[in-house]
């Protein structure tokens, strides 16, 4: 064993765990946040001075929750879930071609890739809220604009997920099939799709879960479901009904959340 350094020699190797650089980064970050707050004219002290007073007031007006029209509320909650299911199915169907065409290693040529990517990014960029507002004007009130808005917007998400999954698949099986003379379409169905099936299923459930949460809000712009009830109760200052609706939404999301993570864990 070679001769070891003494403690005195080792001291030369000591360094602080946190350096001036870390401190500077921290200070700059705090400065950055304060500049943003100043620009937005946010005064945090208001939150503690007036905030509690109004907060207590609104909580007071919201309690106790008014469940007098419970059956009606449950009916519109079910309507919301139905909208989300239809929207998700629409998104899945749309996303399969868009996902395949916007994956770099599968797309037939650059032009098609560009068009597919454009639509995927475009529809993901427009929030379903805004899409629903436009669709309500175009095709009228009801569930239809909600379903379409959810479907088209989440198509953008799913197609992006699939394209990324396809771009990261194991290339070994593709080479093996290519070497034995398989066509491009045969390769897709034998080597690409089987590899992405698990994440395909998991992503679809995630989007369903997300769409149910989003669908509760879509009614606010007139696209049906529980959000519509929430909106009208707010307009009539019926805060006790608002809290009842919030509780119903919360319980539904809690159930859906557990259900979807249970199903996803079973798949993986």
């Amino acid at each position: 064993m070679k001769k070891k350094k003494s403690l005195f020699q080792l001291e030369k190797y000591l360094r602080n765990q946190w350096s001036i650089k870390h401190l500077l980064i921290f200070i700059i970050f705090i400065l950055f946040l304060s500049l943003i707050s100043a620009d937005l004219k946010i005064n945090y002290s208001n939150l503690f001075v007036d905030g509690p007073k109004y907060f207590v007031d609104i909580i007071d007006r919201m309690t106790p929750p008014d469940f007098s029209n419970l059956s009606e509320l449950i009916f519109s909650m079910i309507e919301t879930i139905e909208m989300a299911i239809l929207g998700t199915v629409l998104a899945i169907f749309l996303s399969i071609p868009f996902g395949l065409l916007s994956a770099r290693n599968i797309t037939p040529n650059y032009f098609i890739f560009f068009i597919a990517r454009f639509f995927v990014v475009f529809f993901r960029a427009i929030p379903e809220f805004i899409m629903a507002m436009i669709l309500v004007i175009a095709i009228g009130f009801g569930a239809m604009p909600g379903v379409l808005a959810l479907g088209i917007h989440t198509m953008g998400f799913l197609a992006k997920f699939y394209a990324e999954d396809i771009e990261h698949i194991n290339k070994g099986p593709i080479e093996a099939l290519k070497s034995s003379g398989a066509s491009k379409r045969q390769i897709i169905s034998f080597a690409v799709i089987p590899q992405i099936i698990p994440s395909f299923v998991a992503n679809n459930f995630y989007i369903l879960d997300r769409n149910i949460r989003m669908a509760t809000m879509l009614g606010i712009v007139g696209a049906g479901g529980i959000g519509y009830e929430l909106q009208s109760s707010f307009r009539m200052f019926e805060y006790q009904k608002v809290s009842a609706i919030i509780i119903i939404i919360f319980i539904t999301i809690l159930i859906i959340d557990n259900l979807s993570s249970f199903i996803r864990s079973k798949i993986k």
Partner: protein
Amino acid sequence: MLKIKKLKKIFPNGVKAIREIDLNIEAGEFVTILGPSGSGKTTLLRSINGLETIDSGQILFQNQIISEKSLPNIQKKTGMIFQEFNLVNNISVINNVLSGLLHSSSRFLSMFYIFEKKQKLAALEALDTVGLLNKAYSVSNELSGGQRQRVGIARAIVKKPLLLLADEPVASLDPVASISIMNLLSEINKVFKITIICNLHQTDLALKYSDRIVGINNGIIVFNKTNKQLDQKSLKKIFN
């Protein structure tokens, strides 16, 4: 220093990892546990420092029965090194080594990677022992496999343990790095008088480095003698 009495371990899926094992380890020994993969040697090592719970039997460390209550005290006196090194790759080498001292650090300050000066000196000393002092402030994932295992060893010896458990320490390394890691373990055993129990599946390394070889097959001990007494017949018994 270590007495294992009638140890048994069955996994929930029904695999009998350890059928029944009795084993004594003396202070200062370098013992190799030799056996094919799936023979139960990893489970044996992991039950000594509480990474596996045991179904029946007893393990005594310095005449103290290993139990949930005594485990923290025993973990302070044992170090472990792993086949896949098990370093945290995105933090510096010295922070990896300091993580071997977390049991004796301030619970609060160590959350922010703040340690006492004498602990940092101990970490540097351990890095000096494994020959990586000049890499102390490198990020761990910049190191080669052999260097990573050296960091793993530094993390295990920084607490100055009495017993070092090495689970297939060279199985992920090339032959040259394997030899230098085994040489290092042998030095640590001789210079610091640290008892070493080392799992291996390579007979040549076991013969070269250990004082005693314990052959395990299918969850029972089939050979337990000095390495000079290991012949073809007993090798066949171990690896049948």
